[in-house]
């Protein structure tokens, strides 16, 4: 039997993480959170979350980094913005979910073969390469890397969509692709220079 301490101590917190969240874009008002729970009540996904948005807001501003970044909640958020509209303190909750996702990807806080970060990375790669997204190719790329068997189970639907002219095999591409590459490189450069 493995015994675990179920109560967190002050020393378990990561003050750097708490500072980061309240200084990140959209996190300026997180200290105003009343813990009223309107975010959790309005969230269509909260019934599947390990920490509801209300709890997640509290854990993040207190600096419980491990709990927050390994929570399922940040991946369940579909960015529907219901919480943000309801929040009486106008906290940018959806945007904070994005910030947490970005940080969780950076620090590799997700299970292997988990499709959401893989999809995000493939999406970015396709934008850099073509400037536009071709949905059919994106889906294939993601499932080849995460769950090949699901590619087979979806082939029926794919075929129907192809026949309906909704799954073009040809890749969409913009003409001035060099502009996209220059744009992306410039952002990376400025970010480094200003340490953003």
């Amino acid at each position: 039997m493995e015994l675990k301490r179920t109560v967190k101590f002050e020393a378990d917190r990561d003050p750097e993480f708490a500072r980061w969240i309240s200084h990140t874009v959209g996190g300026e008002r997180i200290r105003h959170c009343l813990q009223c729970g309107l975010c959790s009540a309005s969230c269509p996904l909260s019934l599947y979350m390990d920490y509801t948005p209300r709890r997640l807001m509290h854990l993040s501003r207190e600096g419980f980094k491990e709990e927050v970044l390994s929570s399922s909640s940040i991946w369940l958020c579909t960015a529907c913005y219901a919480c943000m509209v309801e929040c009486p303190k106008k906290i940018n909750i959806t945007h904070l979910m994005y910030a947490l996702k970005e940080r969780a990807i950076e620090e590799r806080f997700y299970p292997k073969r988990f499709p959401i970060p893989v999809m995000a990375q493939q999406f970015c790669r396709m934008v850099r390469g073509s400037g536009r997204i071709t949905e059919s190719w994106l889906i294939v790329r993601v499932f080849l890397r995460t769950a090949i068997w699901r590619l087979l189970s979806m082939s029926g639907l794919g075929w129907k969509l192809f026949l309906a002219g909704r799954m073009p095999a040809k890749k969409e591409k913009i003409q001035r692709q060099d502009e996209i590459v220059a744009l992306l490189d410039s952002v990376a450069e400025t970010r480094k220079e200003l340490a953003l």
Partner: protein
Amino acid sequence: MKYAYYPGCSLRGTGRAYEESLLAVFRSLAIEVQELDDWNCCGATTYLSVDELTSYALAARNLALAERERMDIIAPCAACYLVLNKTQRYIRDYPDIKTVVSRALGAIGLEYHDRVRVRHPLDVFLNDIGLEAIAAKVVRPLKGLKVAPYYGCQIVRPYATFDDQRNPTSMDQLLAACGATVAPYPLKTRCCGGSQKGTLPEIGLHLIRYLIAEAQMNGADVIATVCPLCQFNLECFQKEAGSIRHPLSIPVLYFTQLMALALGASAATIGLQRSLVPVEPVLEAKEIAYA
């Protein structure tokens, strides 16, 4: 006034019918549009979660391209609409983001001075053209067709640019002007799950199931959508979302397909044949011509 039309990636793929029918409505209402020159992906909700700063720069390229032409942007896709709007606001509110974006645009010879408006077709039809002008052009009233208007999330949230955030009615009004009956649909702004059906299927299906079941329960003949991803989710997974005891089957169209139909366009030019759940039987039962 001429608008810059920004289709977005989905309208070239799963949302083909949205583009076809939207362009048909533009023609019928004599709205002059020009496709945004060499537009790029807005980054959608996906890019924001990997690299926020870059996503603003990507969206800003489209804003700058439209600004150079001195035109407002029409963005039919809900994700594009939100991302472009959000980018405008964040550039205004955060000096660091503004610096990053201006430099990136400078590197490709573009400038952005916040002089472009991002519009949704719902907004343009309702506020620039007007219900009366549209009703006057209806040649095939959608009489007896009961439509559940589904707005989804990102058209009205988080920014209420032209409609109420909790109970939007712009699509209701447009459909009524086309002669359709609007079904009560309290879940009209509830999330469809977005890409969740692909990444976490059980959860995606759960959200889809309730949206369709409620439309059917309220007697709708068809669901009207404004977003390519909503349309895809609600139409393509009905069989999976339903059960033997509670089967789900209802055509899911773009609101522009219904409008174009009322304005006299023929089925083949507005992509009706691209539906996986055929709408023709419903139209025949209501004696609405579509050829």
